[in-house]
């Protein structure tokens, strides 16, 4: 096995609290409560450890990171440590004053989420009335201050028709980038496949729109596109390969190879409270379990694409096939591929399913 390289990016989930309750939230179904969140001091230490380990990019996320009263201090600490700081936010909880303070602290980039291109859609999907109008105001302030902006539009069957409007919106806002990310079906989203799964036709159409706009707006707007996974024939290279380039830290300090990793029950995660980030990255069982190619079974083991996609997503293999070391069933070489395609079509043609919104973290620690 080749030597393990240092990570490039770290996602810091500062809190699981969020004013929105999107039905595809990437937070685990079992969330960390506020009482267990790391404090400013511990995060500051972790940012320094991350920079020493080789992390270059820090993504401050949540839940809603603006729900942390110490967000400005945290950005300040991250920049002090030498990290490139990116704020991933719904905009809710940000004021002009707070954005000015984030600017002074050295925040490098803002990624603003979009649930829809009008209030009716966005507020229904986000489960938060007034959220869309507030977000538009935040986008204006971001533009006034001059933060580089990425718009992040999470798409699914219910809002994919708004894709052209979202692209026009990104252009109008002067965003440099837009991410069109089809919902990844883990955690909360797994409960909502009947309501959210795009149709095959929609997915194809979205691909054509993206290709056209990439050509038309070349050099003006960068379009990153995450296609509808279930309809593909090759799995995605999840996290650039397990334990290869990125890591996540949960609000309570648990260090995870990806944000959904807690859905794999046999993995044991370590906390920055007990061990240094470097030890966890290089030595912990959870990171080494699916690193490289040694863990693979057939058809991955003898596949010429094994170092291209690393067998796809471990969490998806577990969720669909029941074995985290199996080939991601999205792959056409998986014996479960055709069943998944049928399943995807069934989800996509399901009618009348209500959205199951994410629930907030429990108020108190359960004993």
């Amino acid at each position: 096995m080749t030597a393990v390289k240092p990570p490039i990016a770290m996602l810091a989930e500062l809190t699981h609290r969020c004013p929105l309750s999107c039905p595809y939230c990437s937070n685990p179904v079992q969330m960390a409560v506020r009482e267990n969140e790391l404090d400013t001091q511990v995060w500051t230490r972790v940012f320094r450890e991350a920079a020493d380990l080789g992390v270059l990019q820090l993504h401050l996320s949540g839940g809603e990171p603006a729900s942390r009263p110490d967000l400005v201090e945290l950005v300040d600490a991250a920049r002090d440590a030498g990290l490139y700081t990116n704020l991933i936010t719904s905009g809710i909880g940000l004021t002009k004053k707070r954005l000015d303070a984030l600017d002074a602290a050295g925040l490098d980039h803002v990624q603003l989420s979009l649930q829809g291109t009008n209030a009716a859609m966005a507020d229904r999907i986000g489960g938060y009335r007034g959220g869309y109008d507030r977000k538009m105001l935040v986008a204006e302030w971001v533009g006034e201050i001059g933060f580089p902006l990425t718009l992040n539009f999470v798409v699914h069957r219910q809002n994919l028709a708004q894709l052209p409007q979202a692209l026009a919106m990104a252009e109008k806002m002067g965003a440099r980038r837009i991410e069109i990310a089809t919902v990844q079906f883990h955690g909360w989203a797994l409960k909502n496949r009947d309501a959210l799964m795009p149709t095959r036709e929609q997915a194809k159409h979205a691909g054509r729109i993206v290709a056209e706009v990439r050509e038309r707006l070349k050099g003006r707007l960068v379009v990153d596109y995450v296609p509808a996974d279930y309809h593909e024939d090759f799995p995605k290279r999840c996290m650039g390969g397990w334990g290869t380039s990125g890591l996540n830290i949960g609000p309570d300090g648990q260090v995870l190879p990806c944000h959904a990793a807690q859905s794999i029950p046999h993995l044991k995660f370590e906390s920055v409270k007990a061990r240094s980030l470097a030890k966890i990255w290089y030595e912990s069982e959870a990171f080494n379990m699916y690193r490289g190619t040694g863990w693979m079974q057939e058809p991955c083991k003898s596949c010429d694409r094994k170092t291209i996609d690393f067998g796809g997503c471990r969490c998806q293999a577990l969720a669909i096939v029941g074995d985290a070391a199996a080939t991601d069933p999205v792959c056409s070489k998986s014996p479960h591929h055709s069943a998944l395609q049928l399943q995807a079509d069934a989800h996509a043609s399901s009618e009348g399913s209500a959205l199951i919104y994410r629930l907030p973290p429990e108020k108190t620690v359960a004993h």
Partner: protein
Amino acid sequence: MKPDDIPCLPRGVRLHNDPVRGQWVLLAPERALMIDMVGHAVLSRVDGHRTYREIVDELAGSFDAPREEISKDCSGLMDALRNRRILDVVK
């Protein structure tokens, strides 16, 4: 790139000397690009003042290589970065 174009690194893009990997990295929104010595020689001259022509002249003076070759490398890198909104041209 045209000779009188003035390239600049837009806000949110910066060169970073990475002590862990012992190399230069170009940090940009959601991107970290490892930069080799040639890349660094080019990008460290991108300051929002020097024109493309001036940058190529300087590089031709400091490197023992034909100007055309340097210009080709230079515009190749800058065009690729421009398409990804990591490098802009001053208006």
